């Protein structure tokens, strides 16, 4: 494993950028219509509880990543394949985000550019970042954190000034009852984006002060969750629940509506700026987790050598993962949450925690 050390503030920023990453871009919780923001906040609450599970696991093994302590908890014969599965899961997640990202650009702005061109340039940039190491990624995060907040600030002001906000679109709350909200929460928001914090089980050992893990990560999740909820609410208030639930990329539609003094209009670039930054960090962290896991599992001394082959896998998979966008979305909404996210983010960590709890209790009683 790389010998990187990052500060708590850097970890915080990485968590925020990672969580917001693509969650702001795609319509999160659209099934809940105007109550999307409630399901996002519910997801945040669920995500925080999930993070406590990861945090407990980290507490038991503060110096090693998930792929190592899986072996310590379940033994070598179950642990190693399980670690491998996690690596594949991380690669798959990175692939999905890259595809989302490429699809977004090809369907909106670069309609005649092939997907592979867009994706390969993005992955090249990310490979360069991975090659430079985790510390550098954290620093780049700090650099762009303020840029993102500046853009968000400008964007929100412009939306308000253009008079696009209709609070009545957000009412009535719970028009269809609590069922769709809870349904969205369980099927989507708890796992995406908040359950994806499982990536940080690979990255927490890099923090230089292990006492600050809780505040850095949970603080970051809360900030990101609130931001995503605000974005969802603004989207609904601008577009109305019907258009919001039909739009592929509600935020892009919202930004497209900005019109001010016949001069400031068509600010798609703001959106694209955010897209590249958010996409970069989301893919980078999944990618880095996969690289770190592989290096850890197969005892590679130099993680840099892995960045290119794994990057290439991600690129190829992002093209072949689905034949078109509709298929990609259907997989993402119906298959992935239940058959991948639930087991990897919730079920396996919970089982691991229970086993770890008993193992460590046994150890404690035997030593005392």
């Amino acid at each position, binding site marked *: 494993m790389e010998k990187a050390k990052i*500060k708590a*503030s*850097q970890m915080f920023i990485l968590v925020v950028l990672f969580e917001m990453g693509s969650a702001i871009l795609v319509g999160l919780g659209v099934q809940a219509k105007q109550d999307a923001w409630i399901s996002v906040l519910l997801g945040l609450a669920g995500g925080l509880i999930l993070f406590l599970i990861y945090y407990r696991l980290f507490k038991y093994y503060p110096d090693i990543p998930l792929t190592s302590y899986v072996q310590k908890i379940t033994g070598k014969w179950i642990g190693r394949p399980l670690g491998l599965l996690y690596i594949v899961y991380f690669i798959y997640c990175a692939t999905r985000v890259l595809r989302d990202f490429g699809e977004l*650009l090809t369907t909106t*702005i*670069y309609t005649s*550019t092939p997907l592979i*061109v*867009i994706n390969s*340039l*993005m992955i090249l*940039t990310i490979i*360069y*970042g991975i090659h*430079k*190491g985790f510390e*550098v*990624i*954290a*620093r*780049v*995060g*700090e*650099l*762009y954190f303020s840029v993102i907040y500046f853009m968000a600030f400008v964007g929100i002001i412009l939306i308000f000034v253009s008079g696009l906000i209709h609070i009545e679109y957000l009412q009535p709350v719970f028009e269809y009852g609590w069922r769709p909200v809870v349904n969205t929460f369980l099927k989507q928001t708890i796992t995406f984006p908040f359950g994806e914090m499982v990536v940080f089980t690979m990255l927490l050992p890099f923090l230089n002060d292990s006492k600050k893990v809780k505040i850095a990560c949970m603080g970051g999740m809360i900030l990101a969750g609130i931001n995503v909820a605000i974005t969802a609410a603004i989207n609904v208030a601008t577009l109305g629940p019907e258009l919001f639930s039909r739009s592929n990329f509600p935020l892009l539609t919202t930004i497209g509506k900005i019109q001010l003094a*016949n*001069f400031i*209009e*068509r600010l*798609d*670039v703001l959106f*694209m*700026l955010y897209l*590249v*930054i958010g996409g*970069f960090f989301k893919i980078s962290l999944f990618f880095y987790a996969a690289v770190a896991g592989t290096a850890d599992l197969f005892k590679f001394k130099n993680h840099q050598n892995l960045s290119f082959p794994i990057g290439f896998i991600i690129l190829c998979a992002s093209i072949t993962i689905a034949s078109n966008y509709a298929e990609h979305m259907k997989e993402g909404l119906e298959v992935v949450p239940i058959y991948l996210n639930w087991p990897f983010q919730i079920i396996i960590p919970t089982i691991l925690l229970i086993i770890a709890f008993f193992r460590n209790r046994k150890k404690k009683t035997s030593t005392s």
Partner: protein
Amino acid sequence: MSILSKILKKKQKQRKDDNYRQQQDPQKPEDLPILRDYKENISRIKGEFGNSNDIVIREFIHSKHRGALVYVDGLADSRVISDFILESFNENEIVADEIDYFQFMIEKAVALGSNKVIYNWNQVYDSMLSGDTVIFLDGYNKGISGETKGWEKRAITEPSTQLSIRGPKDSFTETLRTNTALIRRRIKSPNLWIESMKIGTVSQTDIAIMYIKGIANEKIVAEVKERLNRINIDSILGSGYIEQLIEDQAWTTFPTTYHSERPDVVSSQLLEGRIAIIVDGTPFVLTAPAIFIQFFQAADDYYSRFDISTGVRLLRILAFIIAILGPALYIAGTTFHQEMIPTTMAIAIAAQRENVPFPAFVEALIMEVTFEILREAGLRLPRAVGQAVSIVGALVIGQAAVQAGIVSPVMVIVVSITAIANFSTPVFAMAIAARLIRFVLMGMATVLGFYGIMLGLMFMSIHLCSLRSFGIPYMMPIAPFNLRNQQDVFVRFPLWAMKYRPMFISKGNVIRSGENQKPGPPKQGDDTQTPKGES
């Protein structure tokens, strides 16, 4: 690693060692002692220098003792030699036998600023070639080296590349001693330490490392020394050589050491805990470690009030962004994102571009390359021809080019703005980096519009964040972020509020000023404003 590659590596290493030895042997320092017979010494010098006619050998007889003095004409001050050495020989005084003649010469006869006794040939060549006079006395296997340095030097003039409005107007010269003196005059502290060394197996260039003991970080001082000691090259002809040989990252366009020709700037860097490297023969002094934002801090920022200097600094950063992005944004806007441009303006641009036969990228490339050629030519032209080039240049990237239908007027504006913006970066090394990056981003914009530009910028940020200068992250107070060190980044704090030195450089001693430095009107009840007697 396979066995084969191990063997290969071993062989390579051996070959390297052999090469190294071959190179080293002929230039092995002469450890031979000085001979008792002064004639033999003289003939040795004649032989070694191949009868070069700037070597002056003057034999003399003084009070029954024979001897010779040797110096290099042009490096030594011949007036000093005749006044203070030869004069004392002509007095025809007889030195008593019981007095050691050698001791007499050192103490009485050679009335120079500093004399030292030398014993071997290495020292002889050293002092001769640095302008000192060597005296051989018959019967002594040692010599005297008297300080008579005095070659033609350029006077201290106004800085030619880093101008300032309110700051001091002196600048460094090619002479190392003058340069160290310029700094010493500003920092009158015994803690200002100078360490010297010679680098360059043939050129034997004098190098001085300056730092303030107690402020500079000892680890970085040691690192600088180690890197300088590691240099094994035949010659150092300028501080640029040193810069390229001690960088952390060789593959980068961004400068990772700072250089300045202003003594006030170097002094302020020293006071922040940096280390200055002065190279004899170059009016540019290197300082390290350097951080990115440093290249946007000009000397005038500190001589004018903080609000103004903050504004100006932000302007410089904006200019840097324009210098990087200008043509790229034009290309992306006209080829990919026409909808971004306000409609009337888009129509105007389209109408102008109607007659232009080239795509935007080619158009931009023609103009940018032309401008770069003009600029490069302008640097090297004899003064007399300079005016001609500026007239021709104005035609090429001006009205004539537009009328000929090669480029559109908007393109001319874009190129001009970019060029002017590029000149506002205070340090040339950073400005030149921007020039190179601009072309890369133009290419990216051509392929993928704003997305390409964004990826290019992302690539650049990763690169910048990965750079280090003597172990200090290049983007230091911004990424990794450090709240206490934001006093001199985007906003230049008022001097009374800049309490700390950059902490990442001088670890430990970081307090710069005392408490309550904020000036203000006299306290109430103090009668300093109204003259006494009036009240």
